[in-house]
């Protein structure tokens, strides 16, 4: 669901095809019949934006029919935990949870979502699952109205088809079997995307499909190494290894929708935590760390990071000085919100590395307008993409209508180099780091992004070398020596040393491991750390990203290079973070006593003779903690988790069916319509996600009201195998252009007949934001849905075209709006509404 894997991830889809050959059942639930559907055993057409009803009804079915994996659920999830008495559900408040603040449109007070706790802070439980405040009973009430009838009415999926999906999932889960969910931006690019993924997580926990071979939820990443870009992040709200970027201030009231806590990482949003500021390293650790579970190691990871970035300066004031060097967030600085800031003239300069907002980002008309407000912009790319050309070219059909004299932005277009022209690593969906070598030098002045950033950094350091201003110390203190010693016979001699970068990410000893000789090291001469378990909070170790620690455990042993494809779990191929572990939370692959759930699904188990965990993978559990270990009252850190708590990153060691904290839009997934929808919410009067960021005050972000008859058609967007995203790497290649030369819209014969649109001719798609033209692909692969007696049409649009490149076309993102998901600030490009008519744009 939420993924067109066969088209967008054809190489990974090889594994799906192979699994199918071995007997796996492949189900594709999607608004449009794609090449993925063609290979599936079962294709279920559904309405874009209705996923939580589909999944919620499965959750309802599992709970009511006793079809969940009882022993797994009872022992490994928080199903028995009691929630506070003052918690109110969406069933009580007509689509809202307790703690909602009308004025700010946020859940300002999430304290009622917390557990009932004893005097030691330990959660109270009822293993009989009878207490009305236990998660089991709360979920039963929450999903009571998510029925097969509701699925028919909201998703347009017949109950028979839905039942086929449920039946197959249940048959293929449990002790002997497991099922996996694959999703991609079909889920994330919705105003409730995080909650859809949560719903799948709940379903997988109930079926016992987490931490076990063949199970899990696979987030199919959209680009090579985009997983890497969140691990060693390019995101505004994360430091490396999912440690949050500190905030300038945390207030009790997340006073705006742009509150800095917009993070994918679970954050303590309890009021008690919110009033803590993050002005010092200790305050930051108190606010963001956890006392219980693995995250209690947080102080070691942040201190080692500061050590890696600031060297000696990190030792001043026990790390506090260097902590102050870190920029603090003062709001939502995500890409899209920054575009608005740019439009308002608050952003003067812009660096773009492999990003094409003028065609690839939502509401690209607004994006291009925003670029006009910049003083300068640096675009590093392979070709002159739309963003680099926006000052002299514009959208079809009038690309030359732009007058450069009216645009003040100074654009620096610098040639970049693709993967074959640089070495480094990729981290993809499965968290696997794979190293690749440079094959050729880039031509002419083209250089890798790493080269560019490194030399920019060197020049900045030169520029500020003599400054005595305190504000310039972060640049002065930054460790920045990646000079390559082995030049390797290349034409370009000043490329930085990627192995040194990897060594910093892996971590190294600043002081000798035994700390006897008093010697201190720098990156270049330091011994490598073998893994994150040796990281310390006293400044004796440095580590650029704790989760990657162990990838380069000793000189000459870069495990990302490893290429031994043998064995059941391929432990000798590449390096999967953390600790080369292939399946996270794999303690859950054994029963509470530590025995495999079944011989067939044997993975990790407790070896009673050797008194340790063993198996086919690296155990994701303290190696010697026996299944019968029980914590003492008041224990902290990992000692607080029992031998049956597999989810070690959670303070209670349980898989969270109910999320007592960490989400900005509720502890349980709830169906809301998309921000634009042809139908009203059948479950609540609250139509769409009440915590989403709507930017209602902006005149340029016009939305069609829910149920607007002027825009009655649902649109969803997707990728084709033949092109890559907005086309910056593919629309310059004649071989690929010949395969998919033009933007087209896919629509059903019924809709085409209704609107007088002919197959192969042009049609116009319009939304309140703009209009585009596309060729009409009238196909039975799109089918009208019958919802509650009413026919709802859907159309599908790829988004690979723009006004640059060797083939051009309208920009699909000119149609999309700027309503952002509250947790991660992502746009809703997968479900919005439009109207269509035959013809071309004037």
């Amino acid at each position, binding site marked *: 669901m939420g993924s067109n894997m066969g*088209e967008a991830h054809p190489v990974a889809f090889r594994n799906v095809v192979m699994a199918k050959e071995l007997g796996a059942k492949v189900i594709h639930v999607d608004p449009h019949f794609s*090449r993925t559907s063609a290979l599936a055993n079962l294709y279920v057409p559904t309405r874009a934006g209705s996923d939580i009803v589909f999944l919620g009804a499965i959750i309802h079915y599992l709970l009511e029919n006793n079809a969940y994996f009882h022993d797994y659920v009872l022992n490994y999830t928080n199903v028995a935990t009691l929630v506070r008495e003052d918690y109110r559900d969406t069933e009580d408040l007509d689509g809202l949870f307790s703690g909602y603040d009308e004025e700010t449109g946020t859940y300002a007070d999430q304290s009622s979502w917390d557990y009932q706790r004893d005097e030691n802070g330990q959660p109270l439980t009822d293993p009989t699952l009878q207490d009305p405040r236990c998660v089991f009973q709360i979920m039963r009430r929450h999903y009571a109205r998510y029925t097969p009838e509701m699925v028919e009415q909201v998703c347009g999926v017949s109950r028979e088809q839905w039942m086929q999906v449920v039946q197959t999932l249940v048959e293929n889960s449990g002790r002997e079997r497991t099922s996996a969910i694959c999703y991609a931006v079909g889920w994330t690019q919705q105003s409730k995307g995080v909650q859809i993924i949560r719903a799948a997580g709940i379903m997988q926990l109930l079926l016992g499909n987490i931490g076990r071979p063949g199970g899990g939820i696979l987030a199919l990443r959209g680009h090579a190494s985009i997983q890497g870009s969140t691990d060693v992040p390019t995101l505004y709200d994360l430091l490396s290894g999912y440690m949050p970027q500190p905030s300038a201030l945390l207030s009790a009231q997340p006073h705006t929708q742009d509150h800095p806590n917009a993070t994918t990482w679970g954050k303590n949003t309890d009021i008690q935590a919110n009033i803590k500021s993050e002005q010092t390293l200790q305050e930051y650790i108190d606010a963001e760390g956890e006392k219980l579970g693995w995250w209690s190691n947080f102080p070691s990871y942040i201190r080692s990071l500061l050590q890696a970035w600031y060297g000696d300066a990190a030792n001043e004031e026990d790390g506090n000085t260097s902590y102050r060097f870190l920029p603090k967030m003062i709001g939502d600085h995500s890409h899209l919100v920054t575009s608005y800031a740019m439009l308002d003239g608050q952003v003067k300069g812009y660096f773009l590395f492999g990003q094409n907002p003028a065609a690839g980002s939502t509401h690209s008309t607004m994006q291009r307008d925003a670029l006009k407000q910049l003083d300068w912009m640096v675009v590093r790319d392979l070709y002159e993409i739309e963003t680099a050309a926006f000052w002299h070219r514009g959208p079809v059909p009038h690309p030359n209508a732009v007058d450069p004299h009216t645009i003040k932005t100074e654009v620096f277009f610098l040639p970049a180099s693709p993967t074959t022209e640089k070495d480094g690593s990729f981290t993809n969906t499965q968290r696997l780091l794979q190293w690749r070598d440079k094959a050729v030098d880039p031509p002419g002045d083209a250089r890798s992004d790493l080269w560019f950033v490194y030399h920019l950094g060197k020049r900045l350091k030169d520029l500020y070398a003599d400054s005595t201003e305190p504000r310039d110390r972060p640049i002065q203190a930054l460790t920045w020596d990646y000079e390559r010693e082995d030049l390797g016979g290349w034409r370009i001699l000043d490329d930085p040393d990627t192995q040194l970068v990897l060594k910093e990410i892996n971590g190294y000893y600043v002081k000798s491991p035994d700390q006897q000789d008093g010697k201190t090291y720098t990156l270049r001469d330091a011994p490598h750390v073998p893994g994150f378990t040796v990281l310390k909070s006293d400044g004796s170790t440095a580590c650029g990203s704790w989760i990657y620690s162990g990838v380069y455990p000793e000189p000459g042993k870069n495990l990302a290079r490893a290429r031994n494809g043998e064995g059941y779990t391929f432990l000798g191929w590449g390096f999967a973070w953390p600790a080369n572990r292939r399946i996270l939370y794999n303690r859950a692959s054994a029963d509470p006593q530590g025995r495999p759930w079944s011989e067939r699904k044997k993975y990790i188990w407790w070896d009673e003779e050797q008194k340790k965990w063993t198996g086919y993978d690296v155990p994701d559990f303290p190696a010697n903690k026996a299944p019968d270990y029980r914590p003492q009252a008041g224990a902290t850190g990992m000692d607080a988790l029992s031998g049956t708590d597999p989810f070690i990153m959670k303070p209670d060691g349980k898989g969270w069916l109910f999320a007592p904290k960490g989400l900005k839009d509720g502890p349980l997934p709830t169906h809301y319509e998309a921000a634009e929808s042809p139908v009203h919410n059948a479950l609540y009067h609250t139509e769409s996600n009440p915590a989403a960021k709507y930017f209602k005050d902006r005149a340029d972000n016009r939305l069609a009201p829910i149920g607007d008859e002027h825009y009655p058609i649902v649109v969803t967007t997707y990728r084709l195998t033949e092109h890559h995203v907005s086309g910056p790497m593919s629309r310059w290649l004649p071989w690929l252009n010949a395969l998919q030369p033009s933007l087209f819209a896919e629509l059903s014969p019924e809709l085409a007949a209704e609107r007088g649109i002919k197959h192969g001719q042009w049609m116009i798609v319009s939304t309140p934001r703009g209009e585009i033209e596309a060729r009409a692909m009238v196909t039975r692969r799109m089918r009208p849905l019958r919802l509650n007696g009413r026919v709802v049409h859907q159309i599908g649009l790829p988004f690979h075209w723009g006004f640059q490149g060797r083939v051009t076309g309208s920009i699909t993102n000119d149609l999309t709006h700027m309503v952002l998901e509250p947790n991660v600030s992502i746009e809703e490009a997968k479900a919005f509404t439009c109207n269509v008519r035959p013809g071309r744009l004037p």
Partner: protein
Amino acid sequence: MAVERVHPLKEMLGVFNRELPPAARPATGFFTDTSLCIGCKACEVACRQWNQLSAPDPTWTGTSYDNTQLLGAETWRHVLFIEQIGRADGGGLQGDIQGRIAEAKSSGALPVTPPGTALPFFNTDRWLMMSDVCKHCHNAPCHEACPTGAIIRTEFDTVYVQQDICNGCGYCVVACPFGVISRDDQGDQMAHKCTLCYDRQKDGIEPACAKACPTDSIQFGEVEQLRAHARERLGLLHERGLSEARLYGEDESVLEGGLHSFFLLLDEPAAYNLPENPPRPSNNVVPASFWTVMAAMIFGLLSILFFKE
């Protein structure tokens, strides 16, 4: 460095000294299993890239996702897309599922059923995809039609056009019953088609399309092994209820000897634009010659009778 002097007589006789052809190797070919094709067209691109074939003008055809349309002088792999949606709406499965729902409801719990009973191997709605290519026929009509000897069989028993000998007459183009071989009318005027990556095979590596195929829909190997594998595969698909699956060109029924590049199809050959019984033009030579001679004789006799006076 001493230059070896060739005796004038030896040099003169050199024209009769022909290099021995390479020793015959096991016949190689393709088995294209359309039940595994995901329509990614990686084979088309890999083929163009390896063989440095130019791209056709970008033209949106509206024929499903097929904008290449035909095999040709510059297109040696071509992926077809055949939409078969709404063929069997409803179907027999619904009743089965209804029964199970009733059962689940009456028992109050989900019935324990053996895994994997409900779903067919393929949807009833289908989007068939197939990567088409030169068939490298055992009795290749193009080979038989070539008057210059430009088309030969290689040591891998594949059909190969020697570009330096081809004179562009185009006889092969009309002879091919599959519409594979074409003359490059925009370029060198010569006939071109898939070489089964002869150059790569010489170096012991598989053809570019097979290498690029992510799902092993295109399989390269020795023809005999591929045929055995194909028959096994067909049996498996039949077992899985895919009764429409069939092999095309794997046995000798097609073109009196079979194809070295053959296919597993999920529908009638005609659905894939493949002839059920491709004609072999050379079979017409004897009857056509006979009738030509007969006609000549009759006309001769007639004219003798006519001009007898």
